[in-house]
C-alpha cells in the first residue's frame, strides 16, 4: 500500500519575528513532497491542539530569540502531559548554538538544526525517522 504524504505542522512560538528560517523550511519541505501546514505565531497549547486535529506526523518550529530552551521545554512538557509526545517527531531550528544541542535533545527535541543547515538534511531526517 502506498504511504500517505508526510504531514508537517510548522509554527513560531512567542513573538519574535525572524521568519526567514521557518519560511525557507516550509518551502523546502513542500518541494520535497510533504504536506506543510504553516501556522505562524501560535501558543504552544494551540499548536498541540492543532497537531492532534490535523493528524500531523511532525511538529517543527523555529527560534531566533535565544529562548530555545524555554520553548523546547514547554512544547515537550505539554505533549507529555497530554500523553501524546510519541505521536510526533518534534524538530527545532533557528539561531541555536551547537553548544546547546545536547541539552535540547535531553529536554525532548528529536532533532536540532542550527544556521548553515542544508535543507535536504532536514528532509532526510524526517523521512528516516517519521512514523507514519
Amino acid at each position, binding site marked *: 500500500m502506498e504511504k500517505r504524504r508526510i504531514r508537517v505542522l510548522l509554527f513560531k512560538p*512567542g*513573538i519574535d519575528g525572524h521568519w526567514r528560517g521557518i519560511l525557507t523550511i516550509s518551502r523546502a519541505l513542500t518541494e520535497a513532497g510533504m504536506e506543510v501546514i504553516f501556522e505562524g505565531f501560535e501558543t504552544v497549547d494551540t499548536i498541540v491542539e492543532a497537531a492532534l486535529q490535523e493528524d500531523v506526523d511532525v511538529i517543527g518550529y523555529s527560534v531566533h*530569540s535565544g529562548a530555545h530552551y524555554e520553548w523546547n521545554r514547554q512544547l515537550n512538557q505539554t505533549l507529555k502531559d497530554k500523553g501524546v509526545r510519541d505521536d510526533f517527531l518534534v524538530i527545532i531550528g533557528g539561531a541555536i548554538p551547537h553548544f546547546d544541542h545536547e541539552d535540547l535533545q535531553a529536554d525532548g527535541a528529536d532533532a536540532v538544526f542550527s544556521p548553515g543547515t542544508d535543507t535536504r538534511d532536514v528532509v532526510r531526517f524526517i523521512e528516516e525517522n517519521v512514523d507514519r
Partner: protein
Amino acid sequence: MEESKKIAEEEEKWLLGTETGRERKDRFESDAGIGLKSLYTPNDVKGVDYLRDIGFPGQPPYTRGVYPNMYRGRLWTIRMFSGFGTPEETNQRWKMLHEEGETGFSAAVDSLTFAGVDPDDPIDWLEAEVGKEGVPLYSIRGMESLVEGLPIDDMSVALVVEPLTSAAVTSMYFNVARERGIPMDRLRGTTQNDILTMTIGYVPWHPLGPDDLLKLACDLIEYCTPMGEAPKWNPVNFTCYNYREGGIDAVQEIAFGLANAVAHIDELLSRGWKIDDFAFRLAFHLAAQKDFFEEIAKYRAARRLWYRLMTERYKAEDPVSKQFRFHVQTAGSSLSAQQPMVNIMRTAYQGLEAVLGGCQSLHTNSFDEAVCLPTEEAVLLAVRTQQLMREETGVADVIDPLGGSYYVEAMTGELEHRIWEYFEKIEDAGGIVEALKSGWLYKEMNKAFDRRRKAVESGEEKVIGVNCYTMEEEEPHPPFRTNPEAARIEIERLEKLRAERDSARVNKLLDGLKKVCETRENVMPVMMDLTREGATIGEITNTFRDMWGLWDVPMMG
C-alpha cells in the same frame, strides 16, 4: 577616438594570447549576476564623463563621497549594534565599548519592545523573550537606565525600533534628554523607523498594515525635521541591510531602499512640506556583503542615483538633500555557525568594503553572531577590526581610492543602470506600499532566497565551513547568555512605575491618542506626553492595534 580603437585592437590581441579555454569557470559573474570580463580597460568606461558622472567629493553627483575631505577630516563612526538583558546591563556594555573606542551607540531592542507588548501582558509565556535579543525598553524608566551616565549630548545614539514603536521609544529618549536639561537641538542620533524592516525584514507579532506604518513613520519624520522639534535627529534610516539579509542582491537592496524613500517623500509632500524641508535628514543603512568590488561600486552607485533622484524628480535645491548618507553593517547572513573564527576575516573584508565605499558609520559583526548575541571578547575584537583599519592600514588617508579603476567605474555604472531598472519595476508594481499589500515584494524576496539557498546547497556558492573546507567534530563555542532574571526585573520595574504614575492622567492621554488615531493627526505631541507620564509600550501600541486593526501579511507571496 583613435586611442580607443587602438586599445580595442590591443585588447583583442591580448585576449587571443591568453589561454581562455583554461579559465576556472565558463562564466564569471558578480553576486548580482553581472557578467564579468577578465580585464577592464579605458574602453569599458568610454561613456563616463568625469565631471558629470564622477566629480569631486562633496560635489555633485557625489559619486566619490558626500563630504569634501571625507575621512581626512573625520573618520567614520564606530557604531556597534548592542543590547541585551536589562537596560542596566546594556548600559554597562555601552560604557565598556565607549571606553574601548566606540564613537556612537546603537540600541538593539528585544522582541517585546519591537512589537510593542508589555512583559506582563497575558500572552502565553512571554517572559521567555524578555531581554533575549535586545534591551527591554517598555517605559521611560528603562530608557533612563539605558543612557544613565552616558554623554548623550555629545555622542549620537541610534534607536533601532520600527514604526510600530518608533514614536513611543523615540519620545522616551527625547523625554530623558529633557529631564537631563539637554536642549532638543543638541540631540544627535537616529531612529531606524523603517516600514520595510517591519514588514519584509522581520514580521512582528500582530502587525499593523503598510498604510498605518507609513503614517507613523512619517509622523516621526515630520515632528523631528520640518516641524523642527529635533533638528539634528535623523528620524528615519531606510534599512536596506535588513532587506538584503533576506537573500536579495545588491541591485534589489538599493532599489527597495530608494522606492521606500520615495513612498515617504511623497507622503510628506502630500502633507504640504517642501522637499528641502526634510530630505536633508533622510539616511540609509546598507549591507556589506560578500562580493568585494560589487559592494564598493554599490555604495558609489547609490550616491549617484540619490543625487539624480533628488535633482531630477524632486527638484531639490539644498545640496544636503542630495547627499546619500549611510551606515553600514557587515553581513550577518554571510557568517557561519561552523568554524566561527573564519567570521573575523569575513567581517574584516566587508568592513573594508564599507570604508572604501565611503560610509558614514559602521557596525562590524562579532564572530559568534551566527548563533547568539556577542560575548564581550567577540565584540571587542569587532571594534578592534575597525580600529585596525583606522590606525594601521592607511585606507582612510586618500578619498575614494578605487575611483578611476576601470573595473570599479564600469561596475558603478552598470549597477546604477540595473538599480534604476529594478526601481522602475517596483513603481510598476504600484510602489512600495502597494507592492507590500499585493504580496509582490514577498514574492520577490522568496524567489531571491530560494535561489540563494539552492546555490549554497548545490555548492555553486561557496561558504567555508558549510559546503567546503568543512571539519568534523568541532568543539562548540560556549554562547553568550542573557540574564535569566530579566523578566522578573522588568515586570517589577513596570509594577513600580504603574504604582507611582498618575494612571488617570495616562488613561486620559491614551484617550487623546485614540482621538488622534481617528483624525490621523500627527501622533508625536501626545506621544511625548504619554511616555513622560509613564505610559508603557504595550498600552500605546495596543491603542494603535485597537484603532486601526491588524494586517494579515501576505508573506507566502
